[in-house]
Every structure is written in C-alpha cells, then in structure tokens.
C-alpha cells in the first residue's frame, strides 16, 4: 500500500507574533520553523502502518523549497520518500488551493491512504484533510485518536462533545491525526545516516489561485489590566463579590 503523510512547516509555537508592514501577514523576519505538532503524529502513523501492513511511505509538503531539514527528519524516522511541491506563497495559501494541489499529487502517486495532522498550528484551520478527501472522493475520519486498519478499510475513534465516536470507513481514505493516536519516535543514528543518502524530490503542484482574502492581521486586543484581589482563602469573598457584581457571571 502506498501511504502519504502530508506535513506542513509552521512557525515555532512560542514565537512572538509581529504583523508585517502590509497589515495582513505575519512578519517572518527571524521566525524559526518546525513541523506542525500533529503532522509528526501523521508521519508516525504512516510509518507504523507500513511496518504492520507493508508498503511505502511518502512524505509530502506544499511549501518552501528549503523545507529539507524537516523532511530529512521524516526520512530518518523511516519514510521512504520525501517530496516538496515548491510554492513561494505557501504561507498565505488558502485551504482549498492547498487541498487541490495535494489531491492532484496524491492521485498521481497512486496512494491508498493519506495521513494529515488534525490542524496545522499556523492558520488553525483543520480544513485541508477533509477537503483533500472530498476532492479525491475518498472516505475521511478527522481527529483520530485510535485506529484499527485492515486491507479494505478500518475503524477509527475520535473524541467529540458527546463522547467517543467509532467511525467505520472504507479505503482509500484520509485520516487526520489527533494527540493520543501515537507517540512519535525519535530518529535513530542509523536512520539519520540512511536519510543522508536519500534525495528530496521536487515536483510541481497544480496551480490553483487563492479564493479567500486575508484582509487584516492584528494582535489580539490586550486584556484589560486585571487585579490581584488578595492572598489565600481570605481573598475568596472579594472574588465572589467581583464575579457577581462586576463580571456578572455568578
């Protein structure tokens, strides 16, 4: 089975956000990057699935041509191939054009199973996985926390407001990975050496123009200055008072 793990490079989670001069985008000067947290889970699940059911894992990213540091890490963990669809506008790509480009490539690769992250921690959309599946006409389960796969399909669990759902699906499928699904491995020395010999493939993406407009980017309004009401249990009456009379939430 050919398995694809879709990964995206995102800013580190603890960056101090600055808005660029255009007032619409992130000022990327000095920003350092990582693979999105959930995409690590997608790569891990792809490799585990290959180890169990056999096949080949391709890690796929639409992004900067120099994403090789992140991709090499995936190769070192056990992915067979790594492919970049170079896109200079990757930072501002909307979900639809990203999903369309990935769908075209997944089809071309002849994959049967795609893992993505639940959400990329830059735009916080959680849209590309289910859109990719919809464009491909495939089954999709989002926010997967546990997975049982067989040759023709599988069962996945996801956590919702109502409880834990079990979803039965057919293959081919796109599964988006949530925390709890697995613990990503670290790359071993052997893997790191082997990855050095592999090349990172560059391929072209279907160019689809953005539809969504990013009109403005702002820092969140600072929360108004709070108050320390006091120390220890003695401050409890003041808190009750404030919650009832000022904040009106009690």
């Amino acid at each position, binding site marked *: 089975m050919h398995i694809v793990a879709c990964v995206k490079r995102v800013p580190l989670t603890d960056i101090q956000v600055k808005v660029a001069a255009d007032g619409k985008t992130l000022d990327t000067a000095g920003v350092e990057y990582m693979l999105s947290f959930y995409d690590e889970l997608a790569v891990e699940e792809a490799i585990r699935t290959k180890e169990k059911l056999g096949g080949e894992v391709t890690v796929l990213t639409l992004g900067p041509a120099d994403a090789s540091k992140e991709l090499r890490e995936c190769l070192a963990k056990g992915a067979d191939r790594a492919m970049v669809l170079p896109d200079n506008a990757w930072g501002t790509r909307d979900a639809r054009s990203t999903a369309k480009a990935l769908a075209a490539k997944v089809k071309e690769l002849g994959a049967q199973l795609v893992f993505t992250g639940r959400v990329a*921690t830059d735009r916080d959309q959680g849209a590309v996985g289910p859109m990719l599946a*919809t464009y491909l006409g495939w089954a999709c389960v989002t926010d997967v926390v546990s997975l049982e796969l067989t040759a023709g399909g599988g069962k996945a669990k996801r956590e919702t407001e109502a409880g834990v759902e079990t979803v039965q699906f057919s293959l081919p499928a796109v599964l988006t990975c949530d925390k709890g699904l697995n613990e990503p491995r670290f790359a071993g020395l052997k893997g790191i050496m082997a990855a050095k010999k592999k090349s990172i493939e560059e391929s072209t993406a279907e160019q689809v123009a953005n539809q969504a407009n990013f009109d403005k980017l702002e820092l969140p309004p600072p929360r108004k200055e*709070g108050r320390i009401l006091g120390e220890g249990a003695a401050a409890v009456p003041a808190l009750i008072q404030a919650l009832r009379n000022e904040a009106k939430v009690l």
Partner: protein
Amino acid sequence: MTTIVVFVESAGSTPRRASLEALGAASQSGASVVAVVTGPNGPAVAKALGAFGAAQVVVLTGADQYSPDATAKDCAAIVCELKASAFLVAASSTGKDLLPRVAALLDCTPHCDCTALRWSGSASGTRPILAGKAIATVSGGGGVFCASLRPNCFAAVEKAAAGTVTTRAASSARLAVVVDVSAKPGTKLDVKEAPIVVSGGRGLRAPESFSLVEDLAAAFGTAAVGASRAVVDAGWRPHSEQVGQTGKTVAPQLYIAVGISGAIQHLAGMRTSKVIVAINKDAAAPIFKVADYGIVGDAFEVLPALTAAVKAAKG
C-alpha cells in the same frame, strides 16, 4: 432576501447550544434561515428550531447512523438548491469536520472557527490564528460564505419564525459511518461547550487533588473540568480535557485556572474567555497577566473556601 443554511446538531432531541448560536448569527444577518437536522431525533429537534429564528427546517431522514461525507453531500445539495449565500455550522467536533467537506463540494474555501462575523457588504469573519496570538479578518472564499463559529462567541436569538418542517431522504452513498458513540460518563459537560471551565495544572501536585477542582466545578453546576498539558501528559487527566494549542480552544463566560503557570501554549486555548480568574501561589506567574481577577495562594487552601462560597452564593 438571501438564504443562509445552518447545520444544527443535537443531543437527544435537544438542539445543541452552539448550533443555536449559529442560528442566531444567521438570523442576525437579516437573511432567511434554513436549518438542517439529521438523526433519529430529527423531527423532535426540528420542532424546537422555529423559536430560534429558523424559517424552514429540513429533516434528513433515513440516516440513523451519522455519515460525515453523506451529510456533507446533503448540505451542499440543499445550499445549491436554495441558492444560499452562506453555510454555517458550530465549530464543534462534528461541525469542524463537516464544514470543509461541504466547502469542497461547493468548491469554496471555508473560514474555520470564527469568533465574529460581519454581513455588511460582502460577508467577512474574524478568526484567531497562530493559536490566538493574532486575529485575522477574512472574506471571500468563493460563491458561498462557509464558516464554522466558535462556541460561546455568538448569541442564540429567541425569535419566532415559521419553522416550516420539510423532510428529505438522506444520501445513501456513505464512505464513513459513525457506528458507535460511547457517551461520557454521567452528564459531564465538555470543556468546549461549558459556559464555565475550571482548569487545574501541575500546581495540584497529584491526580487525586483534582477532586478539589471537580468539587468547584460541581458547585457552579454548569462547569466543566479542564487541564493543562503538563497534567495530561503525566496521565492525571484525559486528553479530552486539555486546554491549549495542542488541546481544546475554549471561550467560556468564566475560566478559572488553578495551579497553572500560564505558558503561551496554554493561553492560546483560553485567552478569548470572557472572564479569567487565576489562583496560583506564585505572584509572578504569567497567568496573572491575562487574568481579570487573581488570588495569590495555595490551591489546597483557596479551592475548598471558594467551593463553599460558590455553594453559598448559589443558595
């Protein structure tokens, strides 16, 4: 008049609050609102929706087990038939899953997890990105404005409307089906939906002391228990309770953080809460920078006193 289609979720035969908020956001725009409901309780849910501004309710029939892909097809078909200008869902697990599928079927771009919408001129929305460290204003996205709305950010509007109920056979081609839902034990509220969240962190020292957090939540009556990643990773609390960048994003009326330092990734998940209270023994903890009210003190002393005071206040 334009039409907005809203997918409405329910718990049993009661529509979910977050879905009523989405209906509220739709009727606020002045459009004619069409609600879509599905599941075995569809007809009962439909009856309640006229009072919340739905001019028409479409009940999908024959779909006792939920299929996200089939439901997406039905919603997209309804949007097309009614030539609707917008499609809205609650940004719940189900809504977040459904929206991008419907958007793709309409070949539109979804705007996920919006915290505000503006309808004057062309529709636009605001949505936190980079885990709430920045707020983006977004618009466009193709012919139909597709958005999911963060719970607790929009008001449900009690507004009598026709509430005409029609039925429609649900799509039978299904690639994925929910075959089981194991309900949460008891009637526990989910952190994403609850109007009040009481969260505990490593300052509680041991999993057993979360009973103090649970007691406070119980005293409020409508509160859910949340947790920092540190205690979830330690296995003290389930992942479903984690608040933050790699957990749930919540925006309750009241968020109480106990023994939580306030790391940037935690703040990401709760900084849009209406009122934030912090209880921490370290006066320099970053959580106090975002808190409206703070108590510097030992959780083991403050929590029991606060629980008793809330009980007394609730009478």
